[in-house]
């Protein structure tokens, strides 16, 4: 049996799609916004691998064809951005100041909390790029001498968390402007958060996509300055 899992070409992708399908089904059946399909899919996939004792690398060998589409899909975010070009131009000051505020807030909160928790320098720089897209974040951590695998995990957890809390946070804290919502979600929770912003509306989705790019690039420079502080 073990041999079979190891050589199956289709198992990884099938499990991924089935888990996501189950996640969507769970949400529709329960009607609860807490049952986020992405989170359910991740939990189901991990549970399946653990229960059947399947190695992650074996699973990923098949599932990598799903991940393959991630770069092309991210490139497609240029389209909502283009469609909302006028909105962006009209609100350029808000966008620039908002993204700058997000990067400064993120880095400062992490600095203060890292000191409070007594993390060492490597642990601290590992967290600095937590709100930006994985591929940029990995590069930042590597450059600054942190633990890359932890950065990847923390970035993914941040994205899922942001995806789930985006709607309640906007409601509770009275963030009502679609542009403000989009910038907030994209700069706090990168592409995984942007998935939720897309569901909220066209302006939210476009601004969230813009925030991934802008906050990501700004963090490359910001994180190297913050790494010198502590």
């Amino acid at each position: 049996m073990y041999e079979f899992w190891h050589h199956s070409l289709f198992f990884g992708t099938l499990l991924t799609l089935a888990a996501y399908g189950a996640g969507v089904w769970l949400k529709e059946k329960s009607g609860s916004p807490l049952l986020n399909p992405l989170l359910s899919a991740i939990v189901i996939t991990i549970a399946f691998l653990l229960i059947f004792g399947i190695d992650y690398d074996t699973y990923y060998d098949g599932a990598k064809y799903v991940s393959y589409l991630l770069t092309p899909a991210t490139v497609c975010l240029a389209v909502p951005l283009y469609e909302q070009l006028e909105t962006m131009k009209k609100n350029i000051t808000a966008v620039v100041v908002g993204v700058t505020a997000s990067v400064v807030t993120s880095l400062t909160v992490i600095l203060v909390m890292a000191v409070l928790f007594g993390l060492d320098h490597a642990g601290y720089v590992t967290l600095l790029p937590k709100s930006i897209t994985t591929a940029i974040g990995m590069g930042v951590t590597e450059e600054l001498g942190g633990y890359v695998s932890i950065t990847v995990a923390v970035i993914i957890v941040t994205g899922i968390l942001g995806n789930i809390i985006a709607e309640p946070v906007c409601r509770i804290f009275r963030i009502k402007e679609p542009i403000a919502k989009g910038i907030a979600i994209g700069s706090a929770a990168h592409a995984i958060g942007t998935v939720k912003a897309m569901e909220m509306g066209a302006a939210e989705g476009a601004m969230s996509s813009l925030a991934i790019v802008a906050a990501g690039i700004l963090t490359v420079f910001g994180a190297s300055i913050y790494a010198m502080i502590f």
Partner: protein
Amino acid sequence: MKSLKQFAVILFFSFIGEALHALIPLPVPASIYGIILLFLALQRKWIQLRDIHGIVVFLIQIMPVLFVPAAAGLIKSWPVLQPALLPYLVITVFSTVAVMVVTGHVTQLIIRKSRR
């Protein structure tokens, strides 16, 4: 054939992004260069929206699924993550909420000010 052509255009921008990532010594991934270049191409009308519309709708729609394999990789990083789990978790949750709230309000404040 139409969808194939559309997919080829998106792959072309992904590929150019990949090439730039290899050439430029910055930790900026292929996808970010790709977004910027496709955006410019649309703006300059080198590419028409209708030439890629179908594939774009499809890829953006399935985007959440694409994060599942990488996220399931959390089981692999679990041994490294576990010893310092509490501080990492607290910092992650608190800073994510803080960034969302502060960014949302700063952006909203400026939008509303400029309307007056």
